[in-house]
Protein backbone atom coordinates (compact mmCIF):
# COMPACT_ATOMS: atom_id res chain seq x y z
CA UNK A 1 0.00 0.00 0.00
CA UNK A 2 2.73 2.40 1.05
CA UNK A 3 4.74 1.40 -1.98
CA UNK A 4 1.79 1.95 -4.26
CA UNK A 5 1.17 5.41 -2.90
CA UNK A 6 4.83 6.26 -3.35
CA UNK A 7 4.70 5.03 -6.92
CA UNK A 8 1.57 6.98 -7.75
CA UNK A 9 2.95 10.18 -6.22
CA UNK A 10 5.89 9.75 -8.55
CA UNK A 11 3.89 9.20 -11.75
CA UNK A 12 2.31 12.63 -12.07
CA UNK A 13 5.49 14.70 -11.62
CA UNK A 14 7.38 12.57 -14.12
CA UNK A 15 4.54 12.86 -16.62
CA UNK A 16 4.65 16.63 -16.25
CA UNK A 17 8.42 16.49 -16.62
CA UNK A 18 7.99 14.71 -19.94
CA UNK A 19 5.52 17.38 -21.07
CA UNK A 20 8.07 20.09 -20.30
CA UNK A 21 10.67 18.09 -22.20
CA UNK A 22 8.27 17.80 -25.15
CA UNK A 23 7.65 21.55 -25.09
CA UNK A 24 11.25 22.63 -24.73
CA UNK A 25 13.50 20.03 -26.39
CA UNK A 26 12.80 21.17 -29.99
CA UNK A 27 13.29 24.80 -29.06
CA UNK A 28 16.55 24.17 -27.24
CA UNK A 29 17.93 22.06 -30.10
CA UNK A 30 16.84 24.83 -32.46
CA UNK A 31 18.69 27.48 -30.46
CA UNK A 32 21.83 25.33 -30.27
CA UNK A 33 21.84 25.05 -34.06
CA UNK A 34 21.96 28.82 -34.43
CA UNK A 35 25.61 28.42 -33.40
CA UNK A 36 26.34 25.59 -35.83
CA UNK A 37 29.33 26.02 -38.16
CA UNK A 38 28.04 24.05 -41.15
CA UNK A 39 25.10 25.86 -42.76
CA UNK A 40 23.43 22.97 -44.59
CA UNK A 41 23.70 20.16 -42.12
CA UNK A 42 21.56 18.96 -39.30
CA UNK A 43 24.66 17.58 -37.61
CA UNK A 44 26.77 19.52 -35.19
CA UNK A 45 29.99 20.87 -36.71
CA UNK A 46 31.31 23.25 -34.11
CA UNK A 47 30.55 26.55 -32.47
CA UNK A 48 30.37 29.90 -34.26
CA UNK A 49 28.88 33.34 -33.84
CA UNK A 50 29.03 34.15 -37.53
CA UNK A 51 25.30 33.72 -38.20
CA UNK A 52 24.52 36.49 -35.77
CA UNK A 53 27.05 38.69 -37.53
CA UNK A 54 25.47 37.87 -40.93
CA UNK A 55 22.09 38.62 -39.49
CA UNK A 56 22.99 42.17 -38.54
CA UNK A 57 24.69 42.72 -41.90
CA UNK A 58 21.73 41.49 -43.96
CA UNK A 59 19.70 44.25 -45.58
CA UNK A 60 16.79 41.86 -46.17
CA UNK A 61 16.44 41.18 -42.47
CA UNK A 62 16.69 44.88 -41.70
CA UNK A 63 13.92 45.65 -44.18
CA UNK A 64 11.69 42.90 -42.82
CA UNK A 65 12.28 44.02 -39.27
CA UNK A 66 11.51 47.66 -40.07
CA UNK A 67 8.27 46.74 -41.84
CA UNK A 68 7.18 44.46 -39.01
CA UNK A 69 7.91 47.10 -36.39
CA UNK A 70 6.04 49.80 -38.35
CA UNK A 71 3.02 47.53 -38.61
CA UNK A 72 3.19 46.43 -34.98
CA UNK A 73 3.51 49.93 -33.53
CA UNK A 74 0.74 51.32 -35.73
CA UNK A 75 -1.56 48.46 -34.80
CA UNK A 76 -0.80 48.99 -31.11
CA UNK A 77 -1.43 52.70 -31.30
CA UNK A 78 -4.63 52.44 -33.35
CA UNK A 79 -6.25 49.63 -31.44
CA UNK A 80 -5.41 50.96 -27.97
CA UNK A 81 -6.67 54.46 -28.78
CA UNK A 82 -9.84 53.22 -30.41
CA UNK A 83 -10.46 50.77 -27.59
CA UNK A 84 -10.06 53.41 -24.87
CA UNK A 85 -12.44 55.75 -26.69
CA UNK A 86 -14.87 52.92 -27.28
CA UNK A 87 -14.88 51.93 -23.64
CA UNK A 88 -15.02 55.45 -22.27
CA UNK A 89 -17.64 56.91 -24.58
CA UNK A 90 -19.50 53.82 -25.67
CA UNK A 91 -20.24 51.88 -22.51
CA UNK A 92 -22.94 54.23 -21.26
CA UNK A 93 -24.79 54.16 -24.58
CA UNK A 94 -26.41 51.56 -26.79
CA UNK A 95 -22.97 50.78 -28.23
CA UNK A 96 -22.28 48.76 -25.10
CA UNK A 97 -24.31 45.93 -26.60
CA UNK A 98 -22.01 45.83 -29.61
CA UNK A 99 -19.06 44.65 -27.51
CA UNK A 100 -19.84 41.12 -28.65
CA UNK A 101 -18.86 42.16 -32.19
CA UNK A 102 -15.25 42.29 -31.10
CA UNK A 103 -15.20 38.60 -30.28
CA UNK A 104 -15.83 37.75 -33.93
CA UNK A 105 -12.18 38.00 -34.87
CA UNK A 106 -11.23 35.72 -31.99
CA UNK A 107 -13.76 33.04 -32.89
CA UNK A 108 -13.17 32.81 -36.62
CA UNK A 109 -10.06 30.93 -37.79
CA UNK A 110 -7.40 33.42 -38.74
CA UNK A 111 -7.30 32.20 -42.33
CA UNK A 112 -10.91 33.36 -42.74
CA UNK A 113 -10.01 36.84 -41.45
CA UNK A 114 -7.12 36.96 -43.88
CA UNK A 115 -9.17 35.94 -46.92
CA UNK A 116 -11.88 38.45 -45.94
CA UNK A 117 -9.34 41.26 -45.74
CA UNK A 118 -7.78 40.20 -49.02
CA UNK A 119 -11.15 40.24 -50.75
CA UNK A 120 -11.99 43.72 -49.45
CA UNK A 121 -8.69 45.19 -50.51
CA UNK A 122 -8.72 43.61 -53.93
CA UNK A 123 -12.38 44.48 -54.50
CA UNK A 124 -11.71 48.14 -53.69
CA UNK A 125 -8.58 47.99 -55.84
CA UNK A 126 -6.45 49.14 -52.95
CA UNK A 127 -2.81 48.09 -53.14
CA UNK A 128 -1.71 45.46 -50.66
CA UNK A 129 1.13 46.37 -48.38
CA UNK A 130 1.74 48.02 -45.06
CA UNK A 131 -1.75 49.67 -44.86
CA UNK A 132 -3.56 46.36 -45.35
CA UNK A 133 -1.33 44.72 -42.74
CA UNK A 134 -2.05 47.51 -40.27
CA UNK A 135 -5.79 47.12 -40.94
CA UNK A 136 -5.62 43.40 -40.24
CA UNK A 137 -3.46 43.60 -37.15
CA UNK A 138 -5.60 46.36 -35.69
CA UNK A 139 -8.62 44.13 -36.23
CA UNK A 140 -6.91 41.37 -34.25
CA UNK A 141 -5.66 43.83 -31.66
CA UNK A 142 -9.10 45.29 -30.94
CA UNK A 143 -10.43 41.84 -30.17
CA UNK A 144 -7.82 41.39 -27.44
CA UNK A 145 -7.61 44.88 -26.02
CA UNK A 146 -11.30 45.89 -25.81
CA UNK A 147 -12.23 43.15 -23.29
CA UNK A 148 -9.12 43.87 -21.19
CA UNK A 149 -9.74 47.62 -20.97
CA UNK A 150 -13.47 47.15 -20.54
CA UNK A 151 -13.17 44.87 -17.54
CA UNK A 152 -10.62 47.15 -15.94
CA UNK A 153 -12.87 50.19 -16.54
CA UNK A 154 -15.86 48.45 -15.00
CA UNK A 155 -13.86 47.72 -11.87
CA UNK A 156 -13.18 51.41 -11.17
CA UNK A 157 -14.87 52.41 -7.93
CA UNK A 158 -17.50 55.06 -8.61
CA UNK A 159 -16.70 56.74 -5.31
CA UNK A 160 -13.29 57.74 -6.65
CA UNK A 161 -14.94 59.64 -9.46
CA UNK A 162 -17.52 61.19 -7.13
CA UNK A 163 -14.79 62.26 -4.73
CA UNK A 164 -12.78 63.81 -7.49
CA UNK A 165 -15.77 65.78 -8.77
CA UNK A 166 -16.78 66.79 -5.25
CA UNK A 167 -13.33 68.13 -4.59
CA UNK A 168 -13.69 70.43 -7.57
CA UNK A 169 -11.91 68.64 -10.41
CA UNK A 170 -13.32 69.24 -13.87
CA UNK A 171 -14.41 66.37 -16.09
CA UNK A 172 -11.24 66.33 -18.13
CA UNK A 173 -9.10 66.55 -15.01
CA UNK A 174 -10.96 63.56 -13.62
CA UNK A 175 -10.41 61.68 -16.87
CA UNK A 176 -6.69 62.34 -17.09
CA UNK A 177 -5.82 62.25 -13.38
CA UNK A 178 -8.10 59.46 -12.15
CA UNK A 179 -9.34 57.23 -14.96
CA UNK A 180 -6.31 57.05 -17.23
CA UNK A 181 -3.84 56.21 -14.42
CA UNK A 182 -6.16 53.48 -13.17
CA UNK A 183 -6.49 52.06 -16.67
CA UNK A 184 -2.76 52.30 -17.37
CA UNK A 185 -1.80 48.70 -16.43
CA UNK A 186 -4.61 47.39 -18.63
CA UNK A 187 -3.53 49.66 -21.48
CA UNK A 188 0.10 48.60 -21.15
CA UNK A 189 -0.63 44.89 -21.05
CA UNK A 190 -3.02 45.25 -23.97
CA UNK A 191 -0.33 47.07 -25.92
CA UNK A 192 2.25 44.37 -25.20
CA UNK A 193 -0.16 41.64 -26.21
CA UNK A 194 -0.89 43.30 -29.54
CA UNK A 195 2.82 43.83 -30.09
CA UNK A 196 3.52 40.11 -29.67
CA UNK A 197 0.50 39.04 -31.71
CA UNK A 198 1.42 41.36 -34.55
CA UNK A 199 5.04 40.21 -34.68
CA UNK A 200 3.88 36.59 -34.55
CA UNK A 201 1.09 36.76 -37.09
CA UNK A 202 1.50 34.66 -40.18
CA UNK A 203 -1.84 34.42 -42.00
CA UNK A 204 -2.56 38.11 -42.45
CA UNK A 205 1.01 38.71 -43.58
CA UNK A 206 0.84 35.79 -45.97
CA UNK A 207 -2.41 36.86 -47.61
CA UNK A 208 -2.31 40.64 -47.39
CA UNK A 209 1.31 41.76 -47.55
CA UNK A 210 1.40 41.80 -51.35
CA UNK A 211 4.39 40.92 -53.47
CA UNK A 212 6.71 43.70 -52.35
CA UNK A 213 6.35 44.10 -48.62
CA UNK A 214 8.60 41.79 -46.66
CA UNK A 215 7.77 41.19 -43.01
CA UNK A 216 9.61 39.12 -40.46
CA UNK A 217 7.30 36.08 -40.49
CA UNK A 218 7.25 36.12 -44.30
CA UNK A 219 11.03 36.29 -44.38
CA UNK A 220 11.30 33.28 -42.09
CA UNK A 221 8.65 31.37 -44.06
CA UNK A 222 10.30 31.92 -47.43
CA UNK A 223 13.70 30.97 -46.02
CA UNK A 224 12.40 27.80 -44.42
CA UNK A 225 10.59 26.78 -47.57
CA UNK A 226 13.64 27.08 -49.78
CA UNK A 227 16.13 25.56 -47.35
CA UNK A 228 17.28 27.83 -44.62
CA UNK A 229 20.70 28.68 -43.27
CA UNK A 230 21.22 29.06 -39.53
CA UNK A 231 20.51 32.79 -39.98
CA UNK A 232 16.88 31.83 -39.51
CA UNK A 233 17.77 30.10 -36.26
CA UNK A 234 19.69 33.15 -35.13
CA UNK A 235 16.92 35.63 -35.86
CA UNK A 236 14.33 33.35 -34.28
CA UNK A 237 16.47 33.00 -31.17
CA UNK A 238 16.65 36.77 -30.85
CA UNK A 239 12.88 37.01 -31.38
CA UNK A 240 12.35 34.46 -28.62
CA UNK A 241 14.54 36.40 -26.23
CA UNK A 242 12.62 39.60 -26.98
CA UNK A 243 9.20 38.02 -26.60
CA UNK A 244 10.10 36.27 -23.37
CA UNK A 245 11.25 39.62 -21.96
CA UNK A 246 7.94 41.14 -23.06
CA UNK A 247 6.06 38.29 -21.38
CA UNK A 248 8.02 38.82 -18.19
CA UNK A 249 6.97 42.47 -18.34
CA UNK A 250 3.39 41.49 -19.10
CA UNK A 251 3.08 39.10 -16.17
CA UNK A 252 4.47 41.76 -13.88
CA UNK A 253 1.44 43.95 -14.64
CA UNK A 254 -0.73 41.26 -13.04
CA UNK A 255 -3.64 42.09 -15.31
CA UNK A 256 -5.99 39.29 -16.13
CA UNK A 257 -5.87 38.77 -19.86
CA UNK A 258 -7.79 36.15 -21.69
CA UNK A 259 -5.13 33.51 -21.40
CA UNK A 260 -3.48 34.07 -18.07
Amino acid sequence: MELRRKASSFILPSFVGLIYLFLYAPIIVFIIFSFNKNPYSLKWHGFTFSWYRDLFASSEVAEALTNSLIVAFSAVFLSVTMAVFYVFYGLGSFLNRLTILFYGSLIAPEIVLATCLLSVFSFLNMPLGIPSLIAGHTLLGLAYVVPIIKSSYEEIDNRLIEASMDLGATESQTFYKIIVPILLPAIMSGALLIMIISLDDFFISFFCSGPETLTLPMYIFSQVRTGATPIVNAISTLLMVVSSLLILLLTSFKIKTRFF
Partner: protein
Amino acid sequence: MAKRECGVVREMSDNKFKSSVLGASENKSFAMALPAVLWQGIFLYVPVVFIIGISFLKGLDGSVFKNITLGNYDTLMNSSYFITIYRSVVLAFSTALMCLILAYPTAYFLAIKVKKYKNLLFFLLILPFWINFLVKAYSWFFILDHNGFVNSFLIKIGLISTPFHILNTPIAVYIVMVFCYLPFMILPLYNSMAKIDKFLLEASSDLGATAGQTLWHITIPLSMAGITSGFFLVLIPSFGEFVIPTLLGGGKTMYVGSMISYFFLETKNVFLGSAFTCLSGLALIFVALSIYFVFNKIGKKNMGVK
Protein backbone atom coordinates in the same frame (compact mmCIF):
# COMPACT_ATOMS: atom_id res chain seq x y z
CA MET B 1 -34.18 65.63 -2.53
CA ALA B 2 -30.79 64.28 -1.76
CA LYS B 3 -32.36 60.92 -1.06
CA ARG B 4 -34.06 60.84 -4.40
CA GLU B 5 -30.89 61.69 -6.23
CA CYS B 6 -29.12 58.91 -4.43
CA GLY B 7 -31.80 56.52 -5.63
CA VAL B 8 -31.39 57.69 -9.18
CA VAL B 9 -27.67 57.14 -9.04
CA ARG B 10 -28.17 53.66 -7.71
CA GLU B 11 -30.66 52.83 -10.40
CA MET B 12 -28.18 53.69 -13.09
CA SER B 13 -25.82 50.97 -14.06
CA ASP B 14 -22.19 51.45 -13.15
CA ASN B 15 -21.18 52.27 -16.69
CA LYS B 16 -23.98 54.76 -17.13
CA PHE B 17 -22.96 56.46 -13.91
CA LYS B 18 -19.37 56.84 -15.05
CA SER B 19 -20.22 58.26 -18.41
CA SER B 20 -22.94 60.60 -17.18
CA VAL B 21 -20.77 62.05 -14.43
CA LEU B 22 -17.99 62.60 -16.89
CA GLY B 23 -20.20 64.23 -19.46
CA ALA B 24 -19.83 61.45 -21.99
CA SER B 25 -23.55 60.91 -22.18
CA GLU B 26 -25.28 59.40 -25.14
CA ASN B 27 -26.21 62.45 -27.18
CA LYS B 28 -22.95 64.21 -26.55
CA SER B 29 -20.10 62.12 -27.77
CA PHE B 30 -20.83 58.52 -28.52
CA ALA B 31 -19.40 59.31 -31.93
CA MET B 32 -16.01 59.03 -30.28
CA ALA B 33 -16.75 55.38 -29.64
CA LEU B 34 -17.61 54.66 -33.24
CA PRO B 35 -14.19 54.16 -34.88
CA ALA B 36 -13.58 50.86 -33.11
CA VAL B 37 -17.01 49.53 -34.11
CA LEU B 38 -16.65 50.76 -37.69
CA TRP B 39 -13.21 49.21 -38.02
CA GLN B 40 -14.62 45.88 -36.93
CA GLY B 41 -17.53 46.25 -39.34
CA ILE B 42 -15.57 47.32 -42.41
CA PHE B 43 -12.75 44.83 -42.11
CA LEU B 44 -14.58 41.83 -40.73
CA TYR B 45 -18.36 41.78 -41.00
CA VAL B 46 -18.81 43.43 -44.39
CA PRO B 47 -16.17 41.13 -45.94
CA VAL B 48 -17.84 38.05 -44.46
CA VAL B 49 -21.12 39.00 -46.11
CA PHE B 50 -19.20 39.82 -49.28
CA ILE B 51 -17.57 36.38 -49.36
CA ILE B 52 -20.86 34.63 -48.75
CA GLY B 53 -22.42 36.64 -51.57
CA ILE B 54 -19.61 36.03 -54.00
CA SER B 55 -19.78 32.27 -53.42
CA PHE B 56 -23.08 32.26 -55.32
CA LEU B 57 -21.67 34.05 -58.37
CA LYS B 58 -19.82 32.71 -61.37
CA GLY B 59 -18.31 36.00 -62.51
CA LEU B 60 -18.44 39.74 -62.06
CA ASP B 61 -19.06 40.94 -65.63
CA GLY B 62 -22.59 41.87 -66.63
CA SER B 63 -25.43 42.18 -64.18
CA VAL B 64 -25.24 40.46 -60.83
CA PHE B 65 -28.50 38.58 -61.33
CA LYS B 66 -27.31 36.88 -64.49
CA ASN B 67 -24.32 35.48 -62.64
CA ILE B 68 -26.14 33.88 -59.74
CA THR B 69 -25.41 30.20 -59.62
CA LEU B 70 -25.12 27.23 -57.33
CA GLY B 71 -22.44 25.83 -59.61
CA ASN B 72 -19.57 26.57 -57.24
CA TYR B 73 -21.11 24.44 -54.54
CA ASP B 74 -21.99 21.78 -57.07
CA THR B 75 -18.36 21.61 -58.22
CA LEU B 76 -17.17 21.30 -54.64
CA MET B 77 -19.65 18.59 -53.70
CA ASN B 78 -18.69 16.44 -56.66
CA SER B 79 -14.97 16.62 -56.25
CA SER B 80 -12.12 15.54 -54.07
CA TYR B 81 -12.09 19.04 -52.54
CA PHE B 82 -14.78 17.88 -50.21
CA ILE B 83 -12.54 15.28 -48.63
CA THR B 84 -10.09 17.96 -47.49
CA ILE B 85 -12.78 19.39 -45.21
CA TYR B 86 -13.36 15.97 -43.71
CA ARG B 87 -9.61 15.48 -43.31
CA SER B 88 -9.26 18.83 -41.53
CA VAL B 89 -12.13 18.03 -39.18
CA VAL B 90 -10.47 14.75 -38.24
CA LEU B 91 -7.08 16.40 -37.78
CA ALA B 92 -8.50 19.26 -35.69
CA PHE B 93 -10.58 16.96 -33.51
CA SER B 94 -7.81 14.45 -32.87
CA THR B 95 -5.33 17.25 -32.14
CA ALA B 96 -7.70 18.78 -29.61
CA LEU B 97 -8.34 15.40 -28.01
CA MET B 98 -4.64 14.56 -27.70
CA CYS B 99 -3.92 18.03 -26.30
CA LEU B 100 -6.65 17.51 -23.70
CA ILE B 101 -5.23 14.13 -22.67
CA LEU B 102 -1.72 15.57 -22.29
CA ALA B 103 -2.72 18.91 -20.82
CA TYR B 104 -5.18 17.81 -18.16
CA PRO B 105 -2.67 16.07 -15.86
CA THR B 106 -0.17 18.88 -16.44
CA ALA B 107 -2.62 21.63 -15.52
CA TYR B 108 -3.86 19.56 -12.56
CA PHE B 109 -0.34 19.12 -11.24
CA LEU B 110 0.48 22.79 -11.65
CA ALA B 111 -2.75 24.23 -10.29
CA ILE B 112 -3.43 21.83 -7.44
CA LYS B 113 -0.44 19.66 -6.51
CA VAL B 114 2.69 21.75 -6.84
CA LYS B 115 3.73 24.17 -4.10
CA LYS B 116 7.39 24.99 -4.64
CA TYR B 117 8.51 27.06 -7.65
CA LYS B 118 4.92 27.42 -8.82
CA ASN B 119 5.49 30.80 -10.46
CA LEU B 120 8.59 29.66 -12.30
CA LEU B 121 6.89 26.49 -13.56
CA PHE B 122 3.89 28.50 -14.69
CA PHE B 123 6.07 31.03 -16.47
CA LEU B 124 7.89 28.22 -18.29
CA LEU B 125 4.53 26.86 -19.36
CA ILE B 126 3.18 30.10 -20.84
CA LEU B 127 6.43 30.96 -22.59
CA PRO B 128 6.06 28.53 -25.56
CA PHE B 129 2.61 30.01 -26.10
CA TRP B 130 4.23 33.20 -27.31
CA ILE B 131 7.05 31.83 -29.40
CA ASN B 132 6.55 32.46 -33.08
CA PHE B 133 4.44 29.73 -34.64
CA LEU B 134 6.68 29.33 -37.67
CA VAL B 135 9.70 28.96 -35.45
CA LYS B 136 7.98 26.30 -33.39
CA ALA B 137 7.06 24.34 -36.51
CA TYR B 138 10.50 24.74 -38.06
CA SER B 139 12.30 23.61 -34.92
CA TRP B 140 10.93 20.11 -35.50
CA PHE B 141 13.03 19.76 -38.64
CA PHE B 142 16.03 19.38 -36.40
CA ILE B 143 14.30 16.69 -34.39
CA LEU B 144 12.54 14.67 -37.09
CA ASP B 145 14.87 14.85 -40.08
CA HIS B 146 16.48 11.57 -41.05
CA ASN B 147 19.82 12.97 -39.89
CA GLY B 148 18.09 14.64 -37.00
CA PHE B 149 17.98 14.19 -33.31
CA VAL B 150 15.52 11.30 -32.96
CA ASN B 151 17.10 9.17 -35.66
CA SER B 152 20.69 9.78 -34.54
CA PHE B 153 19.69 8.89 -31.01
CA LEU B 154 17.85 5.71 -31.97
CA ILE B 155 20.71 4.57 -34.19
CA LYS B 156 23.27 5.30 -31.49
CA ILE B 157 21.51 3.17 -28.91
CA GLY B 158 21.13 0.47 -31.55
CA LEU B 159 17.35 0.31 -31.67
CA ILE B 160 17.22 0.87 -35.44
CA SER B 161 19.83 0.62 -38.16
CA THR B 162 18.30 2.76 -40.91
CA PRO B 163 16.73 6.14 -40.14
CA PHE B 164 12.96 6.56 -39.96
CA HIS B 165 11.28 8.82 -42.45
CA ILE B 166 8.93 10.82 -40.27
CA LEU B 167 9.32 14.19 -41.95
CA ASN B 168 6.79 14.90 -44.71
CA THR B 169 4.30 12.36 -43.41
CA PRO B 170 0.93 12.88 -41.69
CA ILE B 171 2.52 11.61 -38.45
CA ALA B 172 4.93 14.55 -38.44
CA VAL B 173 2.03 16.94 -39.03
CA TYR B 174 0.12 15.43 -36.12
CA ILE B 175 3.04 15.53 -33.66
CA VAL B 176 3.85 19.14 -34.45
CA MET B 177 0.17 20.16 -34.32
CA VAL B 178 -0.08 18.74 -30.81
CA PHE B 179 3.18 20.44 -29.86
CA CYS B 180 2.11 23.85 -31.17
CA TYR B 181 -1.40 23.82 -29.76
CA LEU B 182 -0.72 22.22 -26.37
CA PRO B 183 -0.24 25.59 -24.57
CA PHE B 184 -3.66 26.74 -25.88
CA MET B 185 -5.17 23.84 -23.92
CA ILE B 186 -3.06 24.03 -20.78
CA LEU B 187 -3.72 27.70 -19.98
CA PRO B 188 -7.54 27.68 -19.81
CA LEU B 189 -7.42 24.38 -17.92
CA TYR B 190 -4.98 25.85 -15.44
CA ASN B 191 -7.16 28.93 -15.01
CA SER B 192 -10.29 26.94 -14.25
CA MET B 193 -8.48 24.54 -11.89
CA ALA B 194 -6.71 27.30 -9.98
CA LYS B 195 -10.15 28.56 -8.95
CA ILE B 196 -11.21 25.24 -7.39
CA ASP B 197 -11.47 25.46 -3.61
CA LYS B 198 -8.91 23.00 -2.19
CA PHE B 199 -11.16 22.30 0.79
CA LEU B 200 -13.70 20.69 -1.52
CA LEU B 201 -11.12 18.13 -2.57
CA GLU B 202 -10.12 17.54 1.04
CA ALA B 203 -13.73 17.18 2.11
CA SER B 204 -14.36 14.69 -0.64
CA SER B 205 -11.48 12.45 0.41
CA ASP B 206 -12.33 12.87 4.11
CA LEU B 207 -15.82 11.64 3.37
CA GLY B 208 -14.36 8.49 1.90
CA ALA B 209 -14.21 9.13 -1.83
CA THR B 210 -11.33 7.50 -3.68
CA ALA B 211 -8.97 9.66 -5.73
CA GLY B 212 -10.77 8.56 -8.88
CA GLN B 213 -14.20 9.48 -7.50
CA THR B 214 -12.94 12.90 -6.42
CA LEU B 215 -11.51 13.47 -9.87
CA TRP B 216 -14.67 12.38 -11.67
CA HIS B 217 -17.25 14.02 -9.42
CA ILE B 218 -15.45 17.15 -8.18
CA THR B 219 -12.44 18.19 -10.24
CA ILE B 220 -13.69 17.44 -13.73
CA PRO B 221 -17.12 19.09 -13.35
CA LEU B 222 -15.54 22.16 -11.77
CA SER B 223 -13.01 22.44 -14.58
CA MET B 224 -15.53 21.83 -17.35
CA ALA B 225 -15.42 25.50 -18.40
CA GLY B 226 -11.67 25.21 -18.92
CA ILE B 227 -12.02 21.96 -20.84
CA THR B 228 -14.59 23.48 -23.17
CA SER B 229 -12.71 26.70 -23.87
CA GLY B 230 -9.40 24.88 -24.25
CA PHE B 231 -10.95 22.42 -26.67
CA PHE B 232 -12.25 25.22 -28.86
CA LEU B 233 -9.04 27.23 -28.62
CA VAL B 234 -7.29 24.23 -30.16
CA LEU B 235 -10.02 22.98 -32.48
CA ILE B 236 -10.79 26.21 -34.33
CA PRO B 237 -7.31 27.40 -35.33
CA SER B 238 -6.08 23.89 -36.05
CA PHE B 239 -8.98 23.41 -38.45
CA GLY B 240 -7.58 26.18 -40.65
CA GLU B 241 -3.93 25.36 -40.05
CA PHE B 242 -1.71 26.06 -43.01
CA VAL B 243 1.89 26.39 -41.88
CA ILE B 244 2.42 22.96 -40.34
CA PRO B 245 0.99 20.82 -43.19
CA THR B 246 2.91 22.95 -45.70
CA LEU B 247 6.26 22.80 -43.96
CA LEU B 248 6.23 19.39 -42.31
CA GLY B 249 3.71 17.50 -44.41
CA GLY B 250 5.69 18.20 -47.54
CA GLY B 251 2.59 19.86 -49.03
CA LYS B 252 1.39 16.50 -50.34
CA THR B 253 -1.77 16.15 -48.26
CA MET B 254 -4.18 19.04 -48.62
CA TYR B 255 -6.06 20.50 -45.65
CA VAL B 256 -8.59 23.32 -45.52
CA GLY B 257 -5.95 25.99 -44.91
CA SER B 258 -3.78 24.94 -47.83
CA MET B 259 -6.87 24.58 -50.04
CA ILE B 260 -8.10 28.12 -49.31
CA SER B 261 -4.69 29.62 -50.00
CA TYR B 262 -4.50 27.56 -53.18
CA PHE B 263 -7.81 29.02 -54.41
CA PHE B 264 -7.12 32.60 -53.42
CA LEU B 265 -3.41 32.96 -54.07
CA GLU B 266 -2.51 30.44 -56.75
CA THR B 267 -5.47 29.83 -59.05
CA LYS B 268 -7.06 33.18 -58.10
CA ASN B 269 -10.47 31.57 -58.48
CA VAL B 270 -12.15 33.80 -55.92
CA PHE B 271 -15.65 32.45 -56.57
CA LEU B 272 -14.84 28.80 -56.02
CA GLY B 273 -12.55 29.82 -53.15
CA SER B 274 -15.34 31.74 -51.43
CA ALA B 275 -17.70 28.81 -51.79
CA PHE B 276 -15.06 26.52 -50.32
CA THR B 277 -14.46 28.95 -47.42
CA CYS B 278 -18.20 29.11 -46.69
CA LEU B 279 -18.59 25.35 -46.87
CA SER B 280 -15.68 24.72 -44.50
CA GLY B 281 -16.97 27.45 -42.20
CA LEU B 282 -20.32 25.68 -42.04
CA ALA B 283 -18.62 22.37 -41.33
CA LEU B 284 -16.63 23.97 -38.51
CA ILE B 285 -19.73 25.55 -36.97
CA PHE B 286 -21.54 22.22 -37.15
CA VAL B 287 -18.68 20.32 -35.50
CA ALA B 288 -18.19 22.99 -32.84
CA LEU B 289 -21.89 23.02 -31.93
CA SER B 290 -22.08 19.23 -31.65
CA ILE B 291 -19.01 19.16 -29.41
CA TYR B 292 -20.47 21.93 -27.31
CA PHE B 293 -23.66 19.93 -26.77
CA VAL B 294 -21.72 16.81 -25.80
CA PHE B 295 -19.60 18.75 -23.29
CA ASN B 296 -22.69 20.38 -21.85
CA LYS B 297 -24.30 16.96 -21.33
CA ILE B 298 -21.19 15.52 -19.65
CA GLY B 299 -20.89 18.58 -17.42
CA LYS B 300 -24.49 18.32 -16.24
CA LYS B 301 -24.37 14.56 -15.83
CA ASN B 302 -21.54 14.29 -13.36
CA MET B 303 -22.43 17.50 -11.58
CA GLY B 304 -25.63 15.88 -10.30
CA VAL B 305 -23.96 13.15 -8.27
CA LYS B 306 -26.17 10.08 -8.24
